[in-house]
């Protein structure tokens, strides 16, 4: 090796000729701390200050439990719908060639770009009993707007790109030769899809699901218009936080927010475990 001075065991950073490390890292850390870390730790601090009994009383309140169940339940259902249709959309975009593919591909990102409030009022108008789709569903006895089903619809809209954009690049990377080899060895198309393609896509699908789910749990703007917001029936947890804030009931708002964050992180942890398991299982 070179005659560089002996590596002093622990080193915060590798030496580099490029300047500006202190300035950029210092600024980034200061900005991150001011904008994100201090406010978030304020939330943790406030909920810790509540004490266990008070905290538990708020969280175990029937209305809170219901709101959490609705938020997590509808987000789960919507993410499941998106796994099916998002994967299908990704498949069609990656594998098939048709005129206007580029436009369809670009449209998938609409939910990222369209403000949630706009999506909310548009979906509500569509699914209201006199709306274009609501009118068709009315005779079938299906009510979407102002029910939990409406929440699922809004969350399907919000979550779609998360699944498509996670699965699509992995699908593009699939080596077609493996499929060809399987086909020449006599595998049916169904076998190829279930035994060769799906295992490779499973981790991406799980990631897409968890991203859509996490986004759905916290979603507010697109949901509150279509949900009808009936306590115990179609009231989501983020809305309950807003309601408690408007009542100046800061402790309740803080406790609900803290439990939401905790549950979301727990869920991400579980997803990570599932993912590492599926990586081991399917290589």
């Amino acid at each position: 090796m070179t005659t560089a001075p002996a590596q002093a065991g622990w080193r915060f950073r590798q030496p580099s000729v490029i300047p500006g490390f202190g300035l950029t890292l210092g600024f980034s850390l200061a900005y991150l701390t001011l904008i994100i870390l201090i406010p978030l730790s304020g939330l943790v601090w406030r909920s810790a200050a509540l004490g266990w009994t008070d905290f538990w009383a708020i969280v175990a309140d029937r209305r809170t439990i219901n709101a959490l169940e609705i938020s997590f339940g509808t987000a789960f259902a919507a993410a499941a719908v998106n796994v099916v249709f998002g994967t299908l959309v990704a498949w069609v975009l990656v594998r098939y060639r048709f005129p206007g593919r580029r436009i369809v591909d670009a449209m998938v990102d609409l939910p990222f770009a369209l403000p949630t409030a706009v999506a909310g009022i548009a979906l509500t108008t569509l699914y209201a009993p006199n709306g274009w789709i609501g009118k068709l569903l009315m005779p079938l006895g299906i009510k979407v707007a102002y029910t939990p089903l409406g929440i699922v619809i809004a969350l399907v809209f919000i979550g779609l790109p998360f699944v498509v954009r996670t699965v699509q690049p992995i699908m593009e990377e699939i080596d077609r030769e493996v499929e060809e080899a399987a086909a020449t060895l006599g595998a049916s198309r169904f076998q190829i899809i279930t035994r060769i393609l799906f295992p490779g896509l499973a981790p991406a699908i799980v990631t897409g699901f968890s991203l859509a789910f996490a986004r759905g749990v916290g979603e507010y703007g697109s949901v509150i218009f279509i949900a009808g917001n009936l306590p115990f029936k179609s009231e989501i947890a983020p809305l309950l936080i807003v309601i408690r804030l408007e009542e100046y009931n800061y402790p309740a708002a803080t406790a609900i927010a803290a439990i939401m964050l905790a549950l979301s992180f727990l869920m991400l942890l579980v997803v990570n475990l599932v993912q590492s398991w599926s990586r081991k299982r399917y290589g």
Partner: protein
Amino acid sequence: MADPEIKSYEPHHESQSAAVTESRPVRAVLMAVAFAFLGIFLVLPLIVVFNEALAKGVGAYTEALASPDTRSAIRLTLLVAAISVPLNIVFGISAAWAIAKFEFKGKAFLTTLIDLPFSVSPVISGLVYVLLFGAQGLLGAWLKAHGIAILFAVPGIVLATVFVTFPFVARELIPLMQEQGNGDEEAALSLGANGWQTFWYVTLPNVKWGLLYGVLLCNARAMGEFGAVSVVSGHIRGLTNTMPLHVEILYNEYNAVGAFAVASLLAGLALVTLVLKTLLEMRYGAEIAATRGH
């Protein structure tokens, strides 16, 4: 392994690669289902926005947009984006420089922290500032004593917007600058350029399209943010109402034309964002971070 389903390979005649794609009818069905799904979930809502906005004619539409409250909402939205987007550009460039150009301990952890706002509900993003600056908040009494208004005023709206749009520029630039490596910068420095010149004449031109891409997404979210801003704004008409909040107020007042007229501007912004984003991806795909999506 003896698999009863394995039969002798029969050549298909529909296309050259029939063995590795679906049969024509299956393909048609899959495409029809995908298009129907996208049509119902993406295209119809977009059409509804413009249809409702123009439901009572162009006159009612322009009139709705000309109302003073709507005008002030548009002005506030532009102001908030004009402050919060540049802040996050400076942060994004700075964070990307530190993370992509240097190797240091805790880098992965720092990168994770930058993404944190994406996994926090917008309502909670607003709530944290209420807990900090609100009347019962940690700094509430001090701010009141000094006559500084943050909550229910423009600074609070800017802070909440900065919070939710925080990761956009950084997470676009970090992978891009990592991919490009340090070679160009080292060459410039060895030729006598100083750090600032290196950044300005070497790094920035290398990442300009990626930066624009990040800024585009950051701006779309900044102008469209609802939940976080709703919590900190106080909904004072003509003063602290951004466009998305104004949409809500008009909608709840059963002023459908007004609500959808403002919504149509935001939908137009979304469409312009998508078009520019697609153009950037098509033309400068290689100069934008390989990671797609968000």
